[in-house]
């Protein structure tokens, strides 16, 4: 039987190695273009937002409560691995969420075609573009607690929240206890609580202390943060589904030291991005992104966790917002930024449109993975489990607009060919938009003022 000889195999390696060299030495192409818009988490009304900071087994979770109803009805129940001390609980700043959301939001970048007649000028321009591119009021009878199998391990008032850390032996007892305590919890809670009780997890329960809340002077609830150590890199999302009506959105901002974060028990997929869209999308980027997200999620039957952004937080290109300052990162829960270490990122308001990576500093990196998922109780049967990969390849949900050169088709010999190309490009853009969003292709064409591309036969091109 013929087998490749060793010589042939080595030749194969040599060729592959040459390819490797060629690939490795290709210059890293910087994104260029101008940032023109973003689609942040505010677009998604029902979205819960969580900042998950993790290094080794140290974890800091920040939860943003976008609670709209009567504050006395607010209740938060989170399974935690151990009894948290008061010092492990903190009230965060809602601005941190806004900043991190703005920094990592899907974005629109815009380019203007150069004059096709002026090749040398175009080269100069390309060069330039590359260069810049609740206190629980009454004490409960401990006998009653015991009868229900619930132990109140600790009670704290932190900020506007009354917090109790509970351990329980029996889920019906815990559900009953919560009701007796005045927590408005949805029916069926005991079934959802049971697996956590049997894993010996504790429960972090919070509600609003209205008197303390009034003192803060805020009309909204501030994020709750808690820090703990645990082998489990996960988010218990199942409890949150109890009172869900229809699909829910969750945005997770994972901050890590080494690389991209992904889920281990669901598929993690990068959203379709870096495509050219019709220029009219500029005015309705939010609408576009909502449609894209819905269409893509539905296509995957709501069983996919989407990566919207992954970047070293020291820079961005193009920047939807300035990178977070060390203080802001600390506020988000990043605990590995030494006080005497050089600054990470650039202070807000001072960053250039494209902040450059840190060079030669002793600063430790902060990687941000922005994950977004839309789910229903059926499509997310198991809590989200995560892992930090070693992947450091940047990714952003970035969409591109290319404005055509506004010149005359008769300006030079190259001009007609250029306009032919533009026509083809616009048709391509229309099809991309229709495919990504599920919008009607003919309506898109109408909005772009283009007709459906006439089908040219091969012989027409032959004797043209």
């Amino acid at each position: 039987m013929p087998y490749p000889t060793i010589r042939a195999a080595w030749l194969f390696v040599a060729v592959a190695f040459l390819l490797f060299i060629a690939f490795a030495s290709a210059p890293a192409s910087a994104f260029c273009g101008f940032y023109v818009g973003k689609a942040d988490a505010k677009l998604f009304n029902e979205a819960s937002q969580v900042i998950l900071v993790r290094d080794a087994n140290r974890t800091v979770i920040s939860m943003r409560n976008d609670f709209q109803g009567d504050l006395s009805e607010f209740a938060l129940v989170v399974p935690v691995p151990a009894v948290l001390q008061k010092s492990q609980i903190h009230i965060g700043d809602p601005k941190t969420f806004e900043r991190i959301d703005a920094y990592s939001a899907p974005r629109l970048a815009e380019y203007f075609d150069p004059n096709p007649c002026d090749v040398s000028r175009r080269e100069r321009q390309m060069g330039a573009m590359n260069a810049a591119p609740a206190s629980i009021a009454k004490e409960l009878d401990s006998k009653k607690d015991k009868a229900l199998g619930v132990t109140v391990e600790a009670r704290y008032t932190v900020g506007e929240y009354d917090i109790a850390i509970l351990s329980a032996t029996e889920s019906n007892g815990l559900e009953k206890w919560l009701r007796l305590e005045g927590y408005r919890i949805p029916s069926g809670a005991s079934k959802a609580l049971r697996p956590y009780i049997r894993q010996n997890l504790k429960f972090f329960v919070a509600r609003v202390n209205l008197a303390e809340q009034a003192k803060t002077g805020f009309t909204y609830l501030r994020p709750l943060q808690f820090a703990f150590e645990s082998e489990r890199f996960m988010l218990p999302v199942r409890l949150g589904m109890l009172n869900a009506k229809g699909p829910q959105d969750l945005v997770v901002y994972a901050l890590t030291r080494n690389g991209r974060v992904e889920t281990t028990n669901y598929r993690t997929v990068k959203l379709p991005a870096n495509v050219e869209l019709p220029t009219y999308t500029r005015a309705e980027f939010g609408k576009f992104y909502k449609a894209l997200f819905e269409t893509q999620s539905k296509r995957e039957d709501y069983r996919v966790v989407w990566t919207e952004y992954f970047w070293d937080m020291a820079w961005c290109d193009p920047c939807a917002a300035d990178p977070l300052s060390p203080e802001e990162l600390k506020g988000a829960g990043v605990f590995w930024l030494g006080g005497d270490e050089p600054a990470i990122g650039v202070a807000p308001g001072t960053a250039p449109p494209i902040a450059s990576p840190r060079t030669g500093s002793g600063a430790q990196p902060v990687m941000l993975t922005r994950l977004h998922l839309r789910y229903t109780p059926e499509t997310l049967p198991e809590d989200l489990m995560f892992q930090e990969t070693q992947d450091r390849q940047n990714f952003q949900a970035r969409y591109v607009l290319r404005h055509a050169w506004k010149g005359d088709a008769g300006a030079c010999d190259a001009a007609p060919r250029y306009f032919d190309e533009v026509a083809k490009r616009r048709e391509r853009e229309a099809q991309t938009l229709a495919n990504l969003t599920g919008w009607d292709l003919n309506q898109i064409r109408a909005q772009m003022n283009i007709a459906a591309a006439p089908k040219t036969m091969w012989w027409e091109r032959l004797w043209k």
Partner: protein
Amino acid sequence: MTFSPRSAMSAARELLPKDARVFQILFLALLLTTGVLLRDFSLHPLQVALAFAAGLATQAFWLKRLGLGQRGFLSAIVTCCGLSLLLRSDTLWAHPLAATLAMSSKFVLRIHGKHLYNPANLGVIAAITLLPGTWVSPGQWGNDLALAVWLLMLGTIVTTRARRLDISWVFLGAFLGLVALRIVLLGQSWAIWWHQLGNGALLLFTFFMISDPMTIPNRRGPRIAYALIVAAAAIGWQYLLFRPNALIWALFLATPLVPLLDRLFAGEGFSWRGPEPAGSIPLRACATSGIPSTAVAEGWPAPARSATTASSSFPALPSLTSDAPSSRRAQPAARCR
């Protein structure tokens, strides 16, 4: 000449390749294509090309170095497919390096004439522990039941052909049984069980990695025990230690048990070329008489236990991709006499 459906069937069977690895390569290539095209694997075509180049070159190097000549490249192709399916990296050099380590391990890490580790398993573990910028995405296949059915079918064909179906089914049963036990104990929803059953990574591991006949115990009893141990270790890794990649770690950690089990329960070694022809002396009888069924030649890195019948330059390479008729099959028979 008479025609009967039975003779037609056997003729058709004759036409099909006897070597299970041919099917394995076909299906792995199909899965790799599916993964890249439909499951958005973050895999660069050049990474696959380099993995194959390095893997095949390493195989060629060792065959030449050890004078093994015409032993073929099927196993190397299987390993490179496996590495491409499992390993992810943001560099180009991780895949070829892992392939080189994996293929070399087959020639260097040998006990009693069998290579110790499943090369793809060792390659992946070596890469994620030693090489920067590498990882495994256990969720990359998703939990799609339709895909699961396909994997189940293709996997069954390969493992049936390789005559090692028992380990796959026992492992799958044990793993899903333990998941079910956990669900009952914790009072979780059965949807989790279905979610696990649809896990493409689990099925791929079950039918294309743990079933590798060269790196599992030779006899059925120990093989079943081994499957149970790997399943229990994987569950422990996943649900007690809460670490990712439970399956490949469990297999890696349990592998040293294989030579031990083979030593305690000697049995018929595996050959890729198919079962013994009718009339040959049953090896099982020989093996149970306590005589080891594998022999090791001089110059081979493994300890030369019972190297009494080494006549050819390389008489006993049950774990190699022996495309030439193996002389090994004759030896235990000779010893039995």
